[in-house]
């Protein structure tokens, strides 16, 4: 009995971090300053094959929703090249002053919970 518990515990210990790694951080739904903007790790990491460092070395902390605590988390900052605007400048990716509804999922999109990957997110990010 004790052996079984130990095996199960070990298996879970290996499995959970593995699942998290596959998740890459999931969906992040920002609600400040406006509701809401969603960011899909799946699209950026799996589809676009971007490395973690590209964003997490300087622009973003590896903690969900940390960015919206800053007062300068505004569209103006993005256009000036901060945060998402580092790449979304029309050269590396679509400019942040175009395709507003690609990221802005609105009040209707606030239902997106962390980790889920609903059809709404798929359609939006392209």
């Amino acid at each position, binding site marked *: 009995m004790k052996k079984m518990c130990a095996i199960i515990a070990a298996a879970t210990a290996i499995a959970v971090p593995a699942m998290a790694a596959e998740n890459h951080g999931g969906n992040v739904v920002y609600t400040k*300053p*406006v*509701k809401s903007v969603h960011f899909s790790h799946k699209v950026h990491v799996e589809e676009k094959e971007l490395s973690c460092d590209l964003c997490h070395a300087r622009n973003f902390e590896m903690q969900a929703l940390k960015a919206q605590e800053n007062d300068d988390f*505004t*569209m*103006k900052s993005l*256009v000036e090249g901060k945060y998402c605007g580092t790449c979304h400048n029309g050269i590396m990716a*679509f*400019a942040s*002053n*175009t*395709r*507003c*509804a*690609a990221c*802005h*999922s*609105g*009040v*209707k*999109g606030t239902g997106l919970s962390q980790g889920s990957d609903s059809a*709404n997110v798929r*359609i*939006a990010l*392209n």
Partner: protein
Amino acid sequence: MRQIKHDLDSMKNEGQENVPMEERRQFLKMGLAITGIFAGGTIFSAMSVMDKVFASTDEFTAQYPYKPHYGMILFQNRCIDCERCVAACVETNDVPHYGYRTRILMKEMPDAVGLKREFIPVFCNHCNIPQCTRVCPTKATYKDQANGIVMIDINKCIGCLTCQEACPYNARYFNEEKHAVDKCNFCFDTRLSKGEKLTGCAAACPATCRVFGDLSDKGSDLFKAVHQLERPVWVLRPEAGTKPNVFYTKDTSPVAFK
């Protein structure tokens, strides 16, 4: 090509009712424009204007002489569904939870190239040929001749909801507290009549999606936006023939953030 000979005397009159509408229209459109002047012996010259299209603001203001002539243009690409406009409207006009004066519709097109989703604010269009005022049995709803806003007199409304049926834009709902139909009135009683220049929704929008103004003022942002040839501007459900005063457009260049 064989010549078809017409003997006018032997031809029968087909009757006015048998002349197709299109033919009648073409005949009536056959207008003439005076392109010269009559000055002692010189005869004016007239030019056929059959295929010209005119957009004269003077004709429009003659037919719809509201001053101010309130309207709004939506920069549809800027709407991000933050719904601050909805919240502001609810707050300003006491809109109950079961009703709405303005809504944000979402359109998704999975096969679209690039952006695949957009948001569309919809509310009372304050039409120049309103269908709601036509059907009201008590004249509770009417187009205010002073400012063009389609108003509702809650004392006269009997709640028959025919106006709700008639509106092509689903702009009306029944307000239980007022015991009358309610809809957007451009915040006339709550803001405009109190000296505010903007409606609640226009003031609340963080993306400058809603541009409210006076169509009779040629210097207003609204007038300018609606009258640019290079800017596509449309209305919702033009086939309904209601001549709305709410217009839609999209930015023709990337959005500017202040």
